[in-house]
């Protein structure tokens, strides 16, 4: 199925979870400082494994950058 990850369409397996998607992003280190929103809702890290994505879901995977 197709989901949007950080604005780009991705084809992922049906039943893919937030954790699966985050996995595909080559994030260095221990993922400290990473947060995820699905369809404009925060998904706490503790739920990444359980949270299954719906088709067309919009996933934002964010982290810290210099700013402000």
């Amino acid at each position, binding site marked *: 199925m197709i989901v949007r990850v*950080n*604005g780009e369409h991705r084809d992922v397996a049906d039943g893919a979870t937030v954790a699966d998607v985050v996995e595909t*992003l*080559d*994030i*260095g*280190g221990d993922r*400290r*400082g*990473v*947060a*995820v*929103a699905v369809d*404009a809702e*925060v998904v*706490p*890290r503790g739920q990444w494994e359980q949270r299954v994505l719906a088709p067309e879901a919009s996933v*934002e*995977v*964010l*982290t*810290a*950058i*210099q*700013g*402000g």
Partner: protein
Amino acid sequence: MSAHADVRSGVDPLVIADRTFGSRILLGSGGFASLELLAAAIEASRTELVTVALRRVDPAARGSIVDVLDAAGVALLPNTAGCYTARDAVLTARLAREAFDTTWIKLEVIGDDRTLLPDAPELLLAAEELVDDGFTVLPYTTDDPVLARRLEDVGCAAVMPLGSPIGSGMGICNPYNLAIIVERAGVPVVLDAGVGTASDATLAMELGCDAVLSASAIARAHDPTAMARALAGAVEAGRAARTAGRIPRRLHAEPSTAPQGLAEFGDDGG
């Protein structure tokens, strides 16, 4: 906030909400050419609180700012830079809480991308919602004393009025508004945005601000590390001057040398 702390003994901490800081500079981490320069500026400024923004993960990114702040032993203050609505700002704040495990948030709700000035009604809305949600809210606001008061009334832990637009380096365009904000504030007042050089920071502290947040003035200076050191000294000097109690301004002169005992050499022979 009163300035009657004992500056002389060096015991003059900045207290925001439940935290105490030895430094009165907050550092914005934006605009540094490298994380190394950021690290150097952190050390030179002696700041204990540094802002970060939230953006999409970029696999190409080199190094982690979080690691830099950890290594420097300074606290991280996430912001909501780039948000134009209360709703986006609130969501961003919640993501920041999740990502960094902190309830502190520098709240920015911008009105447009030209002036980057705060949007007063949206800002107040977001502040109220985040305070209710348990956040420690530090709002970037205009120099409007009424808005500053309302932000305090809804429970913000500090108010961070601008001196002039972000990155403009125009300093404090309206010292009168800032003085009124300070006069009425029951929470710390942090000058946010507009600082261009040391004297702007000194003036902010003399006006009674409790701290100064600087990003561009340091990051974009010809020598960021030297400017970080300069601003650190400028903030301390301004704080000390306010505490010391300045002389009044007067239009006419006041002799610094007493006339008594002046010699008389008679009138010129010539």
